[in-house]
């Protein structure tokens, strides 16, 4: 039973991923969809950072008397993934601004009915 709570950060990962995906699928508001997408991506960041952690390890900086370090590679990878995530969000928001200029709304249903009536 200890294991279930010992791996609590993986539970957080799964919860965040499911919550993010649910928002992307269930919400019609374009901004809310992007928020959901961000939450989903954040769950992956937590996943990478979690498995880079070595129990009892510290930050990977050479210090006397310390010989256990956390694995820095996943952390560095996720730095890259965060940059990609920021770029995606920025581009998504820019698209939403343009969509609002053209359609006057950011609700998916309204946009869809405007396209249908054309």
């Amino acid at each position, binding site marked *: 039973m200890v294991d279930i709570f010992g791996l609590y950060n993986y539970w957080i990962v799964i919860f965040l991923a499911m919550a993010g995906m649910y928002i992307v699928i269930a919400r019609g508001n374009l901004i809310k969809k992007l928020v959901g*997408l961000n939450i989903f*991506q954040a769950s*992956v960041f937590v996943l990478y950072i979690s498995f880079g952690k070595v129990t009892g390890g510290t930050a990977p900086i050479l210090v006397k008397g310390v010989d256990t370090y956390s694995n820095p590679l996943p952390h560095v990878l996720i730095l890259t993934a965060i940059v990609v995530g920021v770029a995606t969000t920025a581009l998504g928001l820019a698209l939403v601004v343009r*969509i609002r200029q*053209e359609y006057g709304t950011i609700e998916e249903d309204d946009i869809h009915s405007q396209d249908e009536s054309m």
Partner: protein
Amino acid sequence: MLSSHLPVLVIIIPLIAAPLCILFRGKDQAFAITLLATWGSFACACVIAAQVMSQGEISYELGGWPPPIGIELRIDALNALILLIVSGIGSVVAPYSRNSLLLEYVEDRSYMYYSSYLLCLCGLMGVSVTGDAFNLFVFLEISSLSSYVLIALGFDRRALTASYQYLIMGTIGATFIVISIGLLYQATGTLNMADIAERLPQHGYDRTVIAAFAFLVIGVGLKMALFPLHQWLPNAYTYAPSTVSAFLAATATKVSIYILLRFLFTVFGVQFSFDVLPTAVPLMILAILAMFIPTIVACFQKNVKKILAYSSVAQIGYMVLGISFVTVTGLTAGILHLFNHALMKGALFLVLGAVFYRIGSCNIDRMAGLARTMPWTMAAFVGGGLSLIGIPMTAGFISKWYLIQASIEKGWWYIAVLIVVSSLIAVIYIWRVIESAYFREPPEDLINVKEAPLSLLIPAWVLVLGNVYFGVETSLPLSMAELAAKTLMGGS
């Protein structure tokens, strides 16, 4: 000296040219830079392909750091063929974009278009040369982000929603791929694809690896528009500017198929992907559904670009069908179709770009009688269309022939029948366009339409003639596809 750095040059050239376009800004300077960069990387890709075919696999240590620690670029026959396709299409579409309506639309900001185009090319080339799993994700996102921008440039406001939808689906797909790479790293402790492949059998196939596999197949399936996950594709290709549709339809989904091949066969290994897990049967069912449902939907579309977009989803089905046979012949057919489809879809979308340039629409009714006013353009459409159906003497015939051979070799003659039937349905939608253009009276306001300018016709005809050439003289793509298929199958 320089030739040993070719693998990295194919990525570096467009990567450096992209900001140069923004620095110089001028319409002509940006165009010149794009042309030099695309042709330069195509030349590099040709030399690489020749090297791979004569000397075998090339490995390049990025920055001089040896592989498991440094990033490795690794090129075998499959990578070389994908490189040829991407850079070849890139250098045919680049001169075409100069005279397209798109640039008049964006006016003095055309350097932005060129810069995104080069970044997209850089990302796609990067995916096809890298031997590092995380690096692959980063390049994939470079190409995806720039393709969202390119699609959103379309004239119709629906281009914006199409691009947004693609962004959401594409990002979910990419995030699935990152999860999969993370889980693989967790299991093996390395990101180098060859290393992962080596260590996975020792690690054993536990739940982590199976989860990684599932995330990867779904993620790549989203990116390559495998049948039920294709929702983003038809609108994105329909409303994107013609140059962009031609470029993306011919390259983006192909590179995703390459990722699928690389992971299924090299990283996870044939034994795990197809013996331990029953991947082949679901893939085959999806492929057959993809061959039929989008093809039938295409028959009822009014917009010719949408017809071609749905047909692209169907063609992905043929490629996946080839993969799902898990034989050398099947893989050869799949890879060959990947090459040929790039040629025919590139050609057809470029033709539609020329049509749109003159009549401002790709609607099948507006194209009535167009063969009288634009004979060369419509002749090119017929050429590309015949290849799409798979008439003998065109490239499309060769790959379908190999697909049928592969299914008969397996003893599944009913699949061979299905391939022929779905090709016959494709005749319907191509014929609808031809019937409208050749046998109907043009609308009154379109009687005096002029033939498309040469700068649009020449690139389109280059690809159409490519279809004919590779339909007769098949040795180049065939030998590469066969070698690639043997390498993939031999990896287990």
